[in-house]
């Protein structure tokens, strides 16, 4: 069974087709990178997968549970209430601009949702959060506020915050696009360490070398469709003209 399954997803903004019949499935433990030029619909696809954006038509399933399906008129119908909440527990999202809560300390950013949303035991949540911070190399920043951290540190906190809810799958929406090359490195290192822990990930990124290195599968999107997908080797040595012209600009990754 697929962890995530998106079928024939369509989404338009003001009549402008952004996603034109996209299908994507992700297995447990798989790491999928989505690459492509700006405006190709990569981020919109993630926003549809995480239900931040509602698709116009198509199906969205998590572990076989229907999050959205096509109604008789071809329009997507979404699961409501408790059902939707249950489905939402399956995934987490790391944003390009972190979106940490500025009025909470690093530790509180990570522990607030597990304690108040999942109603888990405080002590347990705190010790788990400290473990996560250690993994992120930020154990000395627990009591700091986000404004006191660098962009790279903020993004690592955001990753820890998403992980604290124990999602089955973690989405990354251009996690390093707001960072300079030095800070990018430290965030990519953390994401790589998650890969070693076999966490299922879908990553939208412009870091070609990173995508090539970390992914089981790469999806190349352009103009709202999937142009090509396959192993990193397949995509990076593709003979497809569109893929070549895009990757050409990155040299050989």
């Amino acid at each position, binding site marked *: 069974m697929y962890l995530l399954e998106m079928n024939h997803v369509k989404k338009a903004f003001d009549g402008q087709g952004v996603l034109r019949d996209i299908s994507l499935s992700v297995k447990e433990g798989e790491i999928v990178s989505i690459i492509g030029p700006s405006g190709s619909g990569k981020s919109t696809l993630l926003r549809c997968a995480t239900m931040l954006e509602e698709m116009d038509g198509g199906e969205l399933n998590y572990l076989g549970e229907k999050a959205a399906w096509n109604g008789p008129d071809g329009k997507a119908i979404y699961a409501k209430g408790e059902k939707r909440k249950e489905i939402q527990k399956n995934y987490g999202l790391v944003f390009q601009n972190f*979106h940490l*809560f500025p009025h909470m300390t690093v530790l509180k950013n990570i522990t607030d949702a597990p304690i108040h949303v999942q109603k888990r035991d405080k002590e347990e949540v705190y010790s788990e959060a400290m473990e996560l911070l250690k993994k992120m190399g930020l154990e000395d920043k627990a009591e700091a*506020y*986000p404004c006191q951290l660098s962009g790279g540190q903020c993004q690592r906190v955001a990753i820890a915050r998403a992980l604290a809810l124990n999602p089955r799958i973690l989405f990354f929406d251009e996690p390093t696009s707001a960072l300079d090359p030095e800070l990018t490195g430290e965030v990519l290192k953390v994401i790589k360490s998650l890969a070693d822990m076999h966490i299922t990930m879908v990553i939208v990124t412009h870091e070609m070398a990173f995508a090539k290195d970390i992914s089981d599968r790469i999806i190349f999107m352009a103009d709202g469709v999937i142009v090509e997908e396959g192993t990193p080797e397949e995509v990076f040595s593709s003979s497809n003209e569109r893929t070549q012209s895009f990757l050409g600009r990155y040299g050989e990754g």
Partner: protein
Amino acid sequence: MALTKILLQLAGGMWVSIQIFIVTLVFSLPLGLLVSFGRMSKNPVIRAIVKFYISVMRGTPLMLQLMVVYFGPYYLLGIKVGNGYRLWAAFIGFVINYAAYFAEIYRSGIQSMPVGQYEAAKLLGYTKPQTFFRIIFPQVVKRILPSVTNEVITLVKDTSLAFSISVLEMFAVAKALASSQTSLIPFVAAGLFYYVFNLIVAVGMEYIEKRMNYYQ
């Protein structure tokens, strides 16, 4: 009349002014939040009604509003109100007027919040009330504090308007004393009182603003 006697009488008025000040803040601050929700409601009927209420409250003199609240029950409904209603009318008039101003301040703060905060909260599974009270509102408070300070300082001086419905607050007492004593001293003392009151308010608000500076 001795100065001490003047000051003693003024002190009585001062206490009424302080009462109006406190009651207004205690009730208009939460009511204003409720009104701002109505102002931002998805329901167009609620939104229109609240918008009208705010525009009347902001578009007509507070003194006039106090008179309507005070005389309204008798002229409009024929209900005889006792003398004790004066202060209540002042409370009601001030609360509904300031709630309108505070509502607009809340709205400006709430609408200035970046959408990313809502999206992050949604992804983490917060319910809508949790999102508002745990994430949005604490940040809104910090953002609107300078505007609230402005409003609170205006309120200190506005309490003197209760004079128009014969509530014996500070200003009414000072005016009566000034004419009976043919002296300017009661006015000077009253002015000093408002000034010191506002000084305390300003220092208090500055303290709160500093305490909110634990993050940028």
